[in-house]
């Protein structure tokens, strides 16, 4: 009976999030426009400027568009994770978060359900993006489209957990602009999303180290390898570890007796 309660609640939270996403057409379109602009404009412009050597998982020379596609998938999930945290701050300010927090289920479970719901939305966005990219001649082996699913789930959970953690620190909606400047942009640009590690190393050893240990890089590599039917164990372990750390910290952040809620004086 108890298990059924958990199942129904989780499904209710996921359904609500998916429904909201599908019915908010502007959000759906803008979530797609961002990576598509990068793919059609930025990548096309840089195609000539950036020469890429053959690096795993690629077995031949590739176009720059092909290289950044996994990075843009990561970008979709990064923005979605942050958008989910933005909606948590909004929900907290508007009060609807309270309805979730006063239901008789453990808080960690509610947060995990929220996270799964957000990840579900990002996976949906990624597949639509991949479908458009396929028509643009960026095509991975068909098995890659299946292998990428578990990778997307893990990377989505990791980035969502980071968003959740940030949302437990953010007091007001206005403070969210800081997240853009201090989290999203550094995380995205200091990663392997746009350029491979060896290329970064040529310019700066420090940047190379930062990019290497950036959890977003590892998530992108996990996606990149999965899309070509390959398994990157290092990226998997690193992403899994990052998820565990972010999630544990977020749960503490939302715990009324330990977390940030007490200091903020708001829920």
């Amino acid at each position: 009976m108890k298990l059924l309660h958990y199942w129904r609640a989780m499904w209710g939270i996921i359904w609500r999030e998916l429904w909201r996403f599908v019915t908010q057409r502007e959000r759906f379109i803008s979530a797609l426009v961002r990576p598509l602009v990068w793919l059609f404009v930025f990548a096309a412009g840089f195609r000539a400027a950036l020469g890429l050597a053959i690096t795993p998982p690629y077995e031949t020379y590739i176009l720059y568009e092909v290289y950044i596609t996994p990075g843009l998938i990561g970008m979709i999930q990064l923005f979605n994770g942050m958008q989910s945290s933005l909606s948590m701050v909004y929900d907290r300010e508007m009060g609807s978060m309270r309805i979730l927090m006063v239901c008789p289920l453990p808080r960690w479970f509610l947060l995990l359900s929220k996270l799964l719901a957000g990840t579900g939305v990002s996976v949906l966005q990624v597949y639509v993006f991949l479908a458009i990219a396929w028509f643009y001649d960026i095509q991975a082996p068909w098995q890659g489209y299946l292998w990428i699913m578990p990778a997307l789930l893990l990377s989505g959970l990791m980035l969502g957990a980071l968003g959740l953690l940030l949302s437990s620190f953010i007091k007001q909606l206005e403070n969210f602009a800081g997240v853009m400047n201090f989290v999203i942009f550094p995380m995205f640009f200091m990663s392997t999303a746009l350029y491979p590690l060896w290329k970064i190393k040529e310019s700066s050893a420090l940047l190379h180290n930062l990019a290497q240990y950036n959890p977003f890089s590892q998530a992108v590599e996990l996606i990149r390898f999965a899309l070509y039917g390959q398994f990157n164990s290092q990226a998997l372990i690193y992403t899994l570890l990052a998820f565990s750390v972010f999630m544990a910290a977020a749960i503490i952040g939302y715990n009324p007796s330990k977390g940030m809620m007490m200091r903020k004086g708001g829920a």
Partner: protein
Amino acid sequence: MNSSIALSVEDLSFSYSGKKALSHVNFKIKPGECTVLLGPNGAGKSTLFSLITRLYDTREGRIELCGFDIKRQTLLALAKLGVVFQQTTLDMDLSVMQNLRYHTSLHGMGCKQAEQRIREELERLNMYDRRFEKVRQLNGGHRRRVEIARALLHKPSVLLLDEPTVGLDVPSRLSIVEYVHRLAAEEHLAVLWASHLIDEIYPDDHLIVLHKGQVKANGTVDDVLKITNTPTVKDAFYTLTQGETA
């Protein structure tokens, strides 16, 4: 565990970074009782509600809902609680039905039971015909009705309402006040109603006057009038809060 007490608050204190928001608050509410928590803005009403709903941690004192300690038996205690918050907590882009279904899923209800409970609660408030309308299309009074219906779906024993009539027109306000009083009597529900509007108090109500985080009076309306030696609740309130208007 005393089952004749629906909500018990014992020696409850709470501070925000050293500033006392509640100080040694004590009161009990029985099933079927409608208790109005009266206090000016900043009296500590919302803090008290945040503690009862476990949004804040209880560090000093104890809160029990139907005998379950909110800190140690959180989930059992929360299952007994229905809440209407001061701000609207409905999702504007979802229909009435979708909002209520979300709530029933959070409380683990199956489809059939959920449908039945939603129908019962909405019919009581004459809102069943509007169940497929988006919340955004409803006026303030109807949104509040939906929130009250939602708070009752899982059949709680204690209903908390945090200034639910703020911003409503007079007819909507009167109908909600009347409905909640009827609920307490007919459903044997313990109601704690935070307000700063004196005309929402019925003569049979219990009254708790909270001022600067302290309980200044606790009893029936008659008791409070006797203690303060005043003819009206308004005067009593004025005396207890030393000139601060409600």
